[in-house]
């Protein structure tokens, strides 16, 4: 299988500030590759380096075998990009912007624009500066996909889209993928990455800490649990071997649970507790666990 995106020890620093450090990515042709991490982890920096919007400090980055800095115009012919924040020319109508965008590619995109606008329920005659964030995002989606690119790079694409439109958007991305497009999907929302991606790379503080199949990530079932016991002694005595990051504060006990929820409920059922709260942990908590599961 051909590798579409390949980086080797890709590093970008902003003076003394960290950007990304030794990022090794390998995205295969035809896959939907998730790229997750909290805000400021380095997702956008990686993407912007790949697109030659910013320049690497060291390392290598190739797309379709072309050098991302020296041959970016060849690469961009086949890339569709949706940035996290969508801004376009003021006072321009959506149809004019999309027509201008299409003029950079050597194909007629008018049919595709109409088709995507129809599916996304976008009024192309509206001026972009009069549009809501969601509608501007739709313009962004169309301008990123109108030339049917071989590589689609999405940087936090769903912000501003309502749940129904998110579903339509995911359907469109899946269809493009089925037609052969490779997708790099950056997000800090674990659930949407789980929903659409084949593999995922987790980035934290500028470094890739893990790359794995999404199926493995889904099997890894984490819950943040808070129990309130009748007495402090009971809280101190209670033990669950699957629990990590355990904190006991008086009658309260907090921990991160990894395992089957049913087993957790069975254990709780026999404990003398006043209250229980089970919720999905933040992505950051999972990252922490990924980093130091054994040491914790």
């Amino acid at each position, binding site marked *: 299988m051909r590798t579409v995106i390949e980086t080797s020890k890709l590093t970008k620093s902003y003076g003394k500030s960290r950007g990304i450090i030794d990022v090794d990515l390998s995205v295969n042709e035809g896959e939907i590759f998730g790229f997750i991490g909290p805000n400021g982890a380095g997702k956008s920096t990686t993407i912007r380096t790949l697109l030659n*919007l910013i320049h690497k400090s060291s390392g290598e980055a190739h797309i379709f075998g072309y050098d991302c800095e020296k041959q970016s*115009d060849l*690469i961009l012919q086949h890339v569709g990009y949706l940035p996290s924040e969508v801004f376009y020319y003021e006072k321009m109508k959506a149809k004019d912007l999309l027509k201008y965008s299409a003029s950079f590619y050597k194909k007629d995109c008018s049919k595709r624009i109409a088709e995507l606008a129809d599916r996304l329920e976008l009024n192309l005659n509206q001026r972009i500066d009069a549009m809501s964030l969601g509608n501007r995002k739709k313009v962004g989606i169309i301008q990123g996909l109108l030339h049917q690119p071989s590589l689609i790079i999405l940087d936090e694409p769903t912000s501003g889209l309502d749940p129904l439109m998110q579903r339509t958007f995911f359907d469109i991305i899946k269809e493009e993928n089925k037609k052969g497009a490779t997708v790099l999907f950056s997000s800090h929302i674990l659930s949407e990455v789980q929903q659409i991606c084949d593999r995922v790379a987790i980035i934290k503080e500028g470094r890739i800490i893990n790359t794995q199949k999404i199926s493995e990530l889904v099997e890894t079932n984490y819950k943040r649990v808070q129990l309130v016991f009748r007495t402090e002694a009971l809280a101190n005595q209670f033990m669950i071997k699957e629990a990590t990051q355990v904190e006991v504060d008086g009658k309260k006990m907090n921990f991160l649970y990894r395992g089957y929820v049913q087993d957790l409920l069975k254990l709780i059922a026999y404990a003398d507790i006043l209250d229980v709260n089970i919720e999905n942990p933040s992505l950051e908590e999972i990252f922490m666990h990924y980093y130091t599961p054994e040491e914790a």
Partner: protein
Amino acid sequence: MNVYRFEIKNILWTFMIWTIIILAVEMIFMIGLFPSFKESEDAVMAVFNNFPSQLLKSINLEIETFFSFEGFYAFAYIYVGIMSAMMAVSLSIRAFGHEKKSHCQDFLMTKPITRAHLFNIKIVAVLSAIICFNIIFVGANLLLFMKNEAQFGIDSEFILLVGAPFLTQLVFLALGMLYATQVKHIRNYAGPIVSIGLGAYIITAVVQLIEKEALKVIAPFSYFDPNRIVTEGMYDSRLIVAACVLTFFCMGKSYINYTKKEIIEA
């Protein structure tokens, strides 16, 4: 060609407005004011004689030639020149700073076209507008000169005289490019246009007031001084070199900024 068309469309309105304003000002001076001044030559001279000579120099007023058509034209040039300069700054900031102001650099820079190519197209678009303006400007002035008692025909002196705005515009086009490619954000166009245009005028007025020849190299409106054409029939070669150095430096730095600068956030 698509980018060129887009850029021309982007600057068309600015081009039209400035062209109309500059021609209107030129006509007001040369058709409206000049005959009145000429008719009242003695009275006007009496007023001017009460002014300090430095003040007259700071507004580019040469009493010896003021009442000739060409001399009055040279006096009017300071206003036409400022406006022509501001037009050039406006065109180049609008062309090179359009994406920055709209926060949509990501859009253009992720299209399959090199930044160097984009830079070249933008500069050609601005130059096209400036050349069109000057064709109209020279045409209008030709009619003016033909209708009046000008001593010049279409000779080198006429060309130098009406060519001054064009050459001044090239300098200010480069200054506008440098501003647009150097600053991080462009919040509005009016601020930098007025600042650069009036800033250069104030420097020029101060330099003329203190009468230091050497300082003229930092006074952009002195580079192609029409008074010098009227009195000496040529530009000052030293100042032409200064204008070339400034223009090429600004263009070179703008090119480096545009092609190499990182686009960190939209």
